[in-house]
């Protein structure tokens, strides 16, 4: 008897639950559609996101000719990666030096060990500066370069010319850029770390802010190799964001020179925002 009652109760519960679920689903759908209709900005955003993923799908297809892809790849490596070395050196060396001075000035406490300046400089460079801040700076240089190059090709009908020839223009133009930059970015990041530490060393060597031996001891103390892995993983993701977002805005630029400029600006702004967002996500996933 008790069992029958329980079964009855269970059936009623399931029925009510399914009805509630359907009703909830239906209502949620209505609310969502109403929200979409009312909010054209949201719809535009959804459209842009969809367009981005469609472009990425077109980019990651087999190239029409591998020979042409491998001819483009070293050119892009030089253009996007090697040509960025100058800015990476200048910024890293100065930031490394400044960070060492500021860390020393802000940690003037007898309770703190003398090597802490080198340690803090090293960890800041490894964890945040060389991977994230450097990528934000490169988003400005590389992102605007890609967006304006592809945007100009679009408005001067060069992309249409490729399409009419039967070339997958997105794949031909964008894939080598993404592969080239993603490949070179870890090297740029490691290079930036080294140069940043060198900047700090120069402060120790040429000023009396900190001694060379304290600095050298500090940058070696409690070194965690995983931080380098973390920085490299972040840089790979950021390199993909910078190239793909910039290429997306360039590829869909229409009109004239003004639109190419706008596309370039949008590329830099949006890739910077995405870098910051993914920095938070990756830090949470990899360090917490």
């Amino acid at each position, binding site marked *: 008897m008790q069992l029958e009652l329980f079964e009855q109760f269970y059936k009623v519960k399931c029925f009510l639950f399914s009805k509630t679920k359907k009703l909830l689903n239906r209502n949620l759908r209505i609310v969502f559609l109403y929200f979409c209709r009312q909010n054209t900005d949201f719809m535009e955003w959804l459209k842009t996101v969809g367009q981005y993923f469609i472009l990425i799908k077109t980019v990651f297809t087999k190239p029409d000719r591998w020979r*042409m892809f491998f001819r483009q790849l070293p050119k892009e490596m030089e253009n996007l990666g090697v040509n960025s070395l100058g800015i990476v050196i200048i910024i890293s060396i100065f930031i490394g030096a400044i960070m060492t001075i500021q860390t020393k000035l802000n940690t003037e406490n007898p309770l703190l060990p003398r090597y802490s300046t080198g340690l803090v400089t090293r960890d800041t460079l490894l964890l945040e500066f060389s991977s994230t801040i450097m990528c934000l700076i490169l988003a400005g240089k590389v992102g605007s370069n890609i967006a304006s190059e592809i945007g100009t090709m679009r408005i001067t*009908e*060069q992309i*249409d*010319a490729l*399409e*009419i*020839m*039967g070339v997958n223009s997105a794949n031909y133009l964008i894939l080598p850029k993404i592969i080239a930059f993603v490949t070179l970015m870890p090297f740029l990041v490691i290079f930036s770390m080294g140069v940043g530490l060198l900047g700090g060393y120069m402060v120790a060597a040429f000023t009396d802010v900190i001694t060379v031996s304290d600095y050298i001891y500090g940058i070696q103390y409690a070194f965690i190799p995983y931080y380098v892995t973390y920085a490299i993983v972040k840089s790979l993701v950021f390199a993909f964001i910078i190239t793909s977002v910039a290429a997306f805005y360039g590829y869909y630029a229409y009109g004239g020179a003004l639109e190419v400029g706008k596309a370039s600006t949008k590329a830099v702004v949006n890739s910077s925002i995405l870098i910051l967002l993914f920095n938070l996500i990756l830090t949470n996933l990899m360090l917490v």
Partner: protein
Amino acid sequence: MIEVRNLNKSFDDKQVLKNISAVFENGKTNLIIGRSGSGKTVLMKSIIGLHQVDSGEILYDNRDLTKMRFKDIKELRKEVGMLFQGSALFDSLTVFENVIFPLEMFSSMTKKEMIDRANFCINRVNLTEAKNKYPSEISGGMQKRAAIARSISLNPKYLFCDEPNSGLDPQTSLVIDQLIKEITQEFDITTIINTHDMNSVMGIGDNIIFIHEGKKEWQGSKDEIFDCNNQNLNDFVFASDLYKKIKNVHHNF
């Protein structure tokens, strides 16, 4: 031969092409003429497949473009050459590299054969002296000739020219027109030219299609244009005093 049947194309709620049917024969220069905004560029881009039409058929030697799969369209495009209004040469490549580009991308030729073919195309448009120059280093007319050389490098069956004379002086325009006509006849290509240059119409118009407000209003040859009664066509073709005088001379003769 390219044939379009009952083509309709709208952008949002504006109908740009209204039930257009026409035949573009091979070995002839087929001109699409009309005022700015009449829909001639949309018609050409629809024929090429850059715009998807709402209804109608586009037949490339009886192969319907509107029913083709993406892969087949890609294959068809290897038979198509196009000369763009602004030449659309790749800035980062020299004239020679621009011309050899389609060959490197799609042909199964050996390196030597490709170089020979590219040199042949460059010689054909009389551009040998500029073959190692970048597009920014040559004149507008030379850029057009380089673009023609690139468009014929894969030996196309169909050639599309979007306002080939825009931005050129009358003398250079004549050279380009003549070159297109010669190439069309020499290689037996179906050539479609989109223009509003009356010198081209009178010079190389074997088959002329007049588009007005998205509708085909008239089709005929350059000789038939003088006897046409279509008011819109007469207003368009004989707008200038020079052509009015030519028409009067033609009628008195």
